[in-house]
Each structure stands twice: as C-alpha cells, then as structure tokens.
C-alpha cells in the first residue's frame, strides 16, 4: 500500500488503545456509581461490588498507560502560535469550511488542547481516586478530605468524559482519521488536507 502515509507506529497504536480501552472501562464502571441511571452498567463488571473493586485498578492502569502515551506525544503537542490561529478558526473547522483553516502540523490546536486537558485531568483523578479507594486508603483520611475528594473526582471524571466524547466524535467525524489509529496510516490526501505542515515535513512538498 505504497500510497498510504505512516502516522502511528504499532507501539503508539497499542498504547493509545490501551488508554482508550481502560478509559472506557473506567468510565463505564465509574459512571455506574456516578448516577443511579447508569448503575446497570455495573453489571458489565459482575455487579456493584465487582464494579467497586475493579474501578480503581482500572483507573491506576489507565493512569500508567496514559503516562507512557503522554511521554510519547508531549513534544508534538507543544502549543505554537499557529495553533492559536487554528483555535480562532474553530467555527470554520466545525462547519467544514476547511479551506479557511490555517496550516497545521501533526496535530491541530484542538487536538493539542485535548491532549493537555487529559494530561491535567488524569492525575487529579488518580490522586482523588486513591483518597477514596476502599478498603485500602480511604480509612486513613479525615471525613472532610474524603468529601472534597469524592466531589472533585466526580467533576473531573465528568470533564474527562466530555473531553473524550469530543475526541471520539472528532475521530468519527473527520473521515479517514480512525484508520490512523487502527492501521497506523492515513491517505496522503488526508494528511495534506488536515495536517499540511506535517505532510510537507514528510514529503518535502
């Protein structure tokens, strides 16, 4: 398939999907405890008690694999002036007026903002999650700390879910993106259209 451009290595793809799967599991098991309307989701994990047992372990796994991912990707996500420019053209992006969009590198401004959002949220979830982790750590904390932690955990998890919904939607919406994480490759046209600077970097054109 010589006409495809390589975007993600196998390691990167595996790491991404490890994060993605553990996030989905963490989110499903977490949201089951978050609101009664979603408690049924606990049955995916073997019932409420298993849900309570598994959720924190999934969370810790998520955090670990995410750290790896962040180490892989952070340099490419450093925000540059052209990303700010991109952000100013968000409306055009959303309305598919792609011709008005500025040139972007491997990641556009939206992707970078998402990256750094998740980089901030995951440690908060990890820390507050440890505080409220029963039966291991919660008994060591005073009640008021538990109360604050559980509130922050819920709010941050919510933000995280919103962020990931945006991320997933964007992947589905921008045709040709999903292949990048499944096969590691994108079409030259896709690269040229969405990430012109990156395309140029690769091809010299």
């Amino acid at each position, binding site marked *: 398939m010589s006409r495809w451009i390589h975007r993600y290595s196998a390691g990167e793809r595996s790491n991404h999907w490890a994060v993605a799967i553990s996030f989905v599991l963490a989110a499903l098991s977490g949201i089951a405890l978050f609101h009664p309307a979603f408690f*049924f989701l606990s049955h995916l994990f073997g019932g409420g008690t298993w849900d309570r047992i598994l959720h924190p372990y999934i969370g810790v796994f998520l955090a670990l694999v995410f750290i790896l991912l962040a180490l892989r990707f952070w340099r490419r996500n450093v925000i540059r002036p052209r990303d700010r420019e991109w952000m100013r053209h968000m409306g055009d992006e959303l309305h598919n007026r792609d011709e008005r969009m500025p040139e972007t590198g491997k990641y556009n401004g939206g992707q970078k903002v998402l990256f750094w959002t998740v980089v901030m949220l995951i440690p908060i979830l990890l820390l507050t999650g440890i505080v409220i982790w029963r039966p291991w750590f919660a008994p060591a904390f005073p009640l008021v700390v538990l109360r604050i932690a559980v509130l922050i955990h819920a709010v941050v998890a919510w933000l995280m879910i919103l962020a990931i919904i945006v991320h997933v939607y964007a992947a*589905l919406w921008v045709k040709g993106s999903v292949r990048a994480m499944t096969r590691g490759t994108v079409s030259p046209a896709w690269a040229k259209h969405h990430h012109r600077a990156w395309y140029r970097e690769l091809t010299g054109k």
Partner: protein
Amino acid sequence: MQVTRRQFFKICAAGVGSSSLVALGFAPGEALAEVRAFKLARTTETRNTCPYCSVGCGVLIYSLGDKAKNAPGEIMHIEGDPDHPVNRGTLCPKGAGLLDFVHSPGRLTQPEYRAPGSKEWTPISWDDAFTRIAKLMKDDRDKNFIAKNDKGETVNRWVSTGMLAASASSNETGYLTQKIARSLGMLAFDNQARV
C-alpha cells in the same frame, strides 16, 4: 474502524434500548428490601431469674426448637421479662450478656482430677470422683472429728474440712448443702455474704 452513518445510528439505538430494558425491570439480580427475619419466631420461651446480683431480674430464655424429642433445645437468646415487676424487661450489661455466660468457652464439661504435684488435669468419671472424694472426707472426719472438747462437753464438730457454699445456687441446693454439712458436723462453712 470505519463507522458509517448507519452504524452510528445502530450503536445509539442499542444503547438507548438496553437502558430501557433495565428501566423495564430486566436488570439482573436486583434484590428487594427486606428486614432481617425475626429470629425468635418459633423458639421455646422459658422463664428464669438472672443469676448475677440480687435484684433478681426476670429473664426470658429462648431456645431453638419446640421441645420435640429429637431436637435438644439450644439457648440462642436471652432478654428481660417484661412481666417482672422489678426489671420490667430491662437488663443490665451483665444480664444482657447472659447468653455468653451460658455458652462461655470457660464452661466446665467433664469432671477432672489433678493429682498431687501434677501439672495437668486428667478426666475422671463422676463415679470415681464421688467415690474418691467420699473416701477422703470420711478418712478426714474419722480422724479429726471432735465428739467432746477438753472440758468434756459434747460438741460433735468436724472442722478439719471446710466448705464454701455458692450464693448463686438455688435455695434448694443451699438447703440440701446446709443439711448435709451440718449432718457431717461441719462448722468451717461459709458463703459469699461477706465478699
């Protein structure tokens, strides 16, 4: 993964559908609220008196079973007798814990014997114990019984063996004990009135 518009609709529909099924009651294993079953339902109730202090509180003893021949009743709960004019159903921490006295691991269950100088108990049958004790008592009484004192007065006493009687035993036991002790001429005889 390429999700077509059609597939996307399908995923959404399945999600909504499964939540609706849960809402309709298809959630697996959801238990109904239920209080603990009342544990005294068909137990046997026996009236008794608290054996500790002498307020003499009435207690109700609940034992398993209905006294049928094949089911020896095991005591499983004790609480105050509400009819009793003094305690009116109340019990102090000692009385409230009577169940654990009845079932205490410290309860003795078989006669035991400790030989002179020995470091341990050995089991003994009731008959052997009674026989040996009776022999020891008679030997001592025969040897040390005082029929007359130095002045020649009739005194008929035996003071080289003594006894302490249980002040938590019944009047019937106490009466029998008193009768036996005095028939033997015992004077070194006391109860817990003092301590």
